[in-house]
């Protein structure tokens, strides 16, 4: 009866992660315009209704209430895990499919919610890849630094457990306060612990500063970052000198995706907005959009139960922007997603074999 199909986007348009949310919106606007140019789905145009979660759970709960009253079939988002968590119940009770794009906390999919999916991987997988990488590079004494956010703490705990179980020594485990400028006190303390490597599980602004100040202190220990450090701004903040040699884990960057979908998407994005997307999470939001519209096409329906069933069981190796996408019964994305990157002297992110 409605002449458009409405898909919600819940992202941090304001607040500390505003840049993430704004890019998510750019990606979805682009994809929706594309899709509509090709005739939309089920003969109808797709309309993206964006709302701001402010990167904060309570604002998010309100945003969810608001979106839930606007006749959306599904919602894409959001970025932070605790923010997502505050909205899960609301969408579930309103029978709306939620496809999170950046919320990697393990427990989100451990609750048995039928309509919850995510295109990003989980922290436990990332932890596993991180530990493998550290083992491969031969590090014996590891320092772990997080920032006490849900995500970073979760990843740090995961890595710590795995490392300890395989007998690697953890010489440092603590949290910094995000949003500060000076981390020399922590770096000095870290240096005193004499690690072979520092695994920082927080976000890129702090990672950039850590690298920069580490360099200023004349300390040459390798740093590994989690996927929240994957952002070109990292190099801008740290400077090429200081960023060189930094390893981080991430879903493959768009540029490293050979798939034609990714290529053409990137080209169009650049054409429309002037640069390629900074954040992989924005691209993962795009995958959420593509997956749900594909499901509608395939089931010829907007019935959430049918759509959820399709996504859980039928969708296999869908050609996403970030690689092949399938979901398991919990709503988690299956398959190895994480890659290891290293920053080269030019500040480029180089995929490690």
């Amino acid at each position, binding site marked *: 009866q409605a002449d458009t199909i409405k898909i919600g986007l819940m992202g941090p*348009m*304001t607040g500390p992660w505003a840049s993430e949310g704004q890019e998510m919106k750019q990606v979805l606007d682009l994809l929706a315009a594309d899709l509509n140019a090709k005739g939309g789905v089920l003969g109808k145009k797709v309309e993206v209704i964006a709302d*701001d979660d402010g990167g*904060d*759970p*309570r604002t998010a*709960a*309100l945003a969810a*209430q*608001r979106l*839930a*009253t606007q006749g959306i079939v599904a919602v894409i988002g959001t970025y932070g*895990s*605790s923010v997502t*968590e*505050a909205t899960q*119940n609301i969408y579930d*009770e309103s029978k709306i499919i939620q496809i999170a794009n950046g919320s990697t*906390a393990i*427990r989100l999919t451990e609750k048995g919610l039928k309509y919850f999916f995510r295109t990003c991987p989980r922290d436990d997988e990332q932890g596993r890849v991180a530990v493998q990488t550290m083992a491969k590079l031969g590090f014996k004494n590891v320092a772990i630094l997080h920032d*006490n*956010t*849900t995500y970073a*703490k*979760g990843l740090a705990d995961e890595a710590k457990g795995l490392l300890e179980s395989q007998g690697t020594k953890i010489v440092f485990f603590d*949290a910094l306060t995000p949003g500060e400028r000076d981390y020399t006190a922590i770096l000095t303390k870290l240096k005193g612990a004499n690690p072979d490597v520092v695994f920082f599980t927080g976000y890129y602004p702090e990672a950039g500063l850590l690298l920069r100040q580490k360099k200023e202190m004349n300390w040459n220990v390798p740093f590994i970052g989690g996927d929240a450090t994957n952002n070109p701004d990292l190099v801008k903040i740290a400077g090429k000198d200081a960023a060189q040699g930094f390893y981080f884990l991430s879903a493959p960057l768009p540029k490293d995706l050979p798939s034609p979908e990714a290529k053409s998407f990137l080209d169009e994005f650049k054409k429309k907005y002037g640069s390629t997307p900074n954040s992989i999470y924005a691209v993962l939001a795009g995958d959420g959009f593509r997956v749900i519209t594909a499901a509608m096409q395939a089931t010829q329906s907007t019935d959430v139960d049918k759509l959820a069933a399709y996504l859980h069981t039928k969708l296999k190796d869908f050609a996403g922007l970030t690689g092949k996408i399938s979901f398991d019964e919990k709503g988690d994305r299956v398959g190895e997603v994480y890659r290891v990157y290293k920053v080269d002297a030019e500040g480029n992110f180089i995929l490690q074999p």
Partner: protein
Amino acid sequence: MLIYGAVAVALAVSPLFLNAYWTDVLNNIGLYAALGLSLNLIVGHAGLFNLGHAAFYAVGAYTAAILNTHFHIPILVLMPLCGLTAGLFALIVARPIIHLRGDYLCIVTIGVGEIVRIALINNVFGITGGANGIFGIARPNLFGWVVRKPHEFFYLIWGFVAVTAFFFHRLENSRFGRALNYLREDETAAEGSGIDTAHYKLMAFVLGAAWAGMVGNIYAAKMTIIAPESFSFWESVIMFTLIILGGSGSIPGVLLGAFLVVGLPEVFRGFTNARMMIFGAAMIAMMIFRTGGILPARPRRYTVPDRHLAEESA
């Protein structure tokens, strides 16, 4: 009086006309109104510059969440206990600092608020769940009525606000309420009139905190997940702002303040990016427009014995 009645009736029937979203906005306003009323005792009446009220709110919310998730005690049953723990906590922290003046007290309350938040993030005693907070809190159950939807919460929350306003109105017009005003106006004179100023300052803190603790209980019940970021410094700032904006020491003022401070940003939502900028400017403008708050406290009413009034007319 008539106006207040009309507003109350309009509010009471409003969920029938509003969708879930706007009802939920009203719920948030209600929560802040109750918090504002509790802080009003401390800031508005006793004149103590408290910018750390979120700490007491947090203690109440976490008490509810921990006991509910661990021992499955129905959440609303825990409400008195939440008030008690928050009040006790206030008693312990406020006692050594209560003699500090104005802005020194302000920074200490900010400090207490931050210490509590940091303790919660760092999973103090291993029971707060760290940055994740606590999830899986059961919905409230009132004699078999499970409160779940926004308009169900509406009556729970605004019912609590109404009870709060009723009690606090009586409190204001009593020996206790006056004592708080005396010490706000002039501490030395209050002490010199035989008022135990230290005691009343402490009591204002404890009672305000206990009430905030009870609101914390409702908040935990409503969200079913609580996390430290909901109890940040910014929350305290909002509670403080709504009091001053609405009218410090005035119950209708505080209620109106909650509507403005929590509601206006929702109304400005159309401006997406410029929303908070406009809100900031609006805060300044409102303060300049009514420097004493929009509905400032009115003098108390007394029925003076006739004997004296007769003389006046004579």
